[in-house]
């Protein structure tokens, strides 16, 4: 087994940019991703889809091809379709690919595993026909599959992007049910320099809104009391907007109220996380290079805190510079010099992000769901049950596992963890940091005995 200078988990903008930068500085890099083709979430399947659906997906999407092209060079080994299920200190990356287990040894590791859509527990959100808006976009990007009669529910720039992509594809959504209020945007604009810093994103958003308006897609803003109805599958969305009750019949509901860091890999390695109040999520504790406290372990991209695709690319390159310096391939002076323009660009991106965070806050009803609403999809645990745990003395999500089964299903808390933290924090009048999060242990993804056996066989054959 050959040892690599650097293993990168995740071939999105952060991982791809880091791989190209590190290889250019002479590092032997292995880039691992569970998707069959590079791109990450924003540029999912870009090499195939840009020719087929580039006009629908937009100019920003096409930019991803520049990053995938950067992977075709010496020094980068891209292992596609490889699901990483454990990372051991030292480092050893354990993954399964085509039904077989395998491992990569590396001196250093960069986690670039990106974001997940923020859990949006609403009445009826577990019904077939309810998906995340990102899932709807993945169906379009990767497979050219479109929802015939969909309602988009939630808030955020990504919601408008997806609505506009659906319009361009010829299947406009039946309606946008928006949870943010006019006041949110006004407050973001009023905040010192907010509008100025965010103007590029604002202008882009206005362009998308114009496309949505031209297609005569009804927009309902400030929606509350949102519930999805249906017998065995989604049949309608019910809500109140500007004092009027609405019910929109549909087959598909796309939910979205922002993205949050995918913490699974970092938490499994014991990386410390802190609550980020403005983004209402946990973020890993890092220095300005993306370095964790564990020697040789870095994190870049949306997994380090939500900054968007451009910021992810910059963070990937910054991490690669420091990794090369640590590996003795770059002098400290050269590292700092090359980082300077990247830092300036990063500051611009993050300032714009602060504006977006204020303009599109998460939906309050989904942060503190009603008692009857299921919060843990896997084990079907309701918000009321979690509040009940708190009354019995449960202080944190890990402890909640002793009171019930929340977080113990196959998704390992990916779609309930933040909700359970928020519910317990509120019930116990403690902060999210005091309340904490689930302890994440490998395997990060299920591994079968057959896959493990295939790995043992390979190890024996190699001896």
């Amino acid at each position, binding site marked *: 087994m050959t040892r690599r200078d650097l293993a990168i988990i995740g071939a999105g903008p952060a991982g791809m940019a880091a791989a190209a930068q590190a290889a250019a500085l002479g590092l032997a890099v292995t880039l691992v991703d569970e998707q069959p083709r590079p791109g990450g979430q924003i540029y999912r399947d870009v090499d195939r889809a840009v020719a087929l*659906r580039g006009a629908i997906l937009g100019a920003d999407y096409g930019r991803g091809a520049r990053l995938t092209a950067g992977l075709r060079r010496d020094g980068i080994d891209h292992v596609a379709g490889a699901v990483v299920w454990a990372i051991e200190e030292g480092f050893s990356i354990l993954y399964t690919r085509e039904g077989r287990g395998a491992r990569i040894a590396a001196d250093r590791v960069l986690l670039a595993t990106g974001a997940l859509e923020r859990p949006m527990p609403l009445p009826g959100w*577990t019904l*077939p026909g309810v998906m995340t808006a990102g899932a709807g976009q993945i169906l379009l990007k990767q497979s*050219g*599959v479109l929802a015939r009669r969909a309602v988009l529910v939630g808030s955020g720039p990504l919601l408008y992007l997806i609505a506009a992509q659906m319009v361009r594809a010829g299947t406009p959504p039946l309606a946008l049910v928006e949870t943010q209020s006019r006041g949110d945007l006004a407050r973001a604009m009023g905040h010192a320099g907010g509008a100025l810093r965010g103007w590029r994103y604002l202008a882009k958003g206005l362009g998308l809104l114009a496309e949505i308006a031209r297609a005569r897609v009804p927009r309902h803003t400030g929606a509350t009391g949102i519930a999805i109805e249906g017998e*065995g*599958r989604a049949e309608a969305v019910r809500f109140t907007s500007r004092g009027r009750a609405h019910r929109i019949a549909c087959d598909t509901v796309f939910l979205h109220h922002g993205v949050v860091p995918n913490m699974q890999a970092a938490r499994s390695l014991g990386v410390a996380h802190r609550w980020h109040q403005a983004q209402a999520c946990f973020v890993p504790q890092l220095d300005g290079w993306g370095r964790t406290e564990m020697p040789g372990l870095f994190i870049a991209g949306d997994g380090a805190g939500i900054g968007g695709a451009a910021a992810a690319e910059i963070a990937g390159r910054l991490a690669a510079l420091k990794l090369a310096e640590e590996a003795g391939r770059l002098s400290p002076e050269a590292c700092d010099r090359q980082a300077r323009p990247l830092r300036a660009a990063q500051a611009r991106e993050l300032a714009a992000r602060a504006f977006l965070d204020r303009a599109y806050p998460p939906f309050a009803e989904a942060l503190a769901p009603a008692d009857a609403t299921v919060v843990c*999809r896997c084990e079907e645990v309701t918000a009321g049950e979690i509040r009940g745990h708190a009354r019995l003395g449960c202080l944190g999500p890990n402890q909640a596992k002793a009171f019930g089964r929340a977080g113990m299903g196959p998704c390992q808390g990916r779609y309930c963890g933040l909700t359970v933290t928020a519910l317990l924090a509120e019930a116990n009048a403690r902060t999210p940091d005091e309340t904490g999060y689930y302890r994440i242990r490998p395997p990060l993804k299920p*591994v079968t005995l057959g896959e493990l056996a295939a790995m043992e066989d390979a190890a024996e054959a190699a001896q």
Partner: protein
Amino acid sequence: MKPVSPFLETESGTEAGPRVPVSFDGRTLELPEGANLAAALLAAGVQVFRRTPVSGAPRAPYCMMGACFDCLVEIDGVVRQACMIEVTGGLAIRRPHEAHDDPA
């Protein structure tokens, strides 16, 4: 009779390859070879992928990115995420029964 799907396959979506037969709970479906399995099943009109072990509630893909596990199906006795698999001819797919009994 072919069920009407809430999803529509665009022309460009079928570039994945020729249609190949797979079976889903005993029913034969013709899906594009190389396509994402969860997307292809949705486009073919499959609305329920599995039932939850707790209450038997129906579920279908939610995240399409390998994170929610609501797209679990059973293939050759192994429970797998349909959104992380590509279509190959002859796949014999079933609804999984007890997700908890499966390998952790």
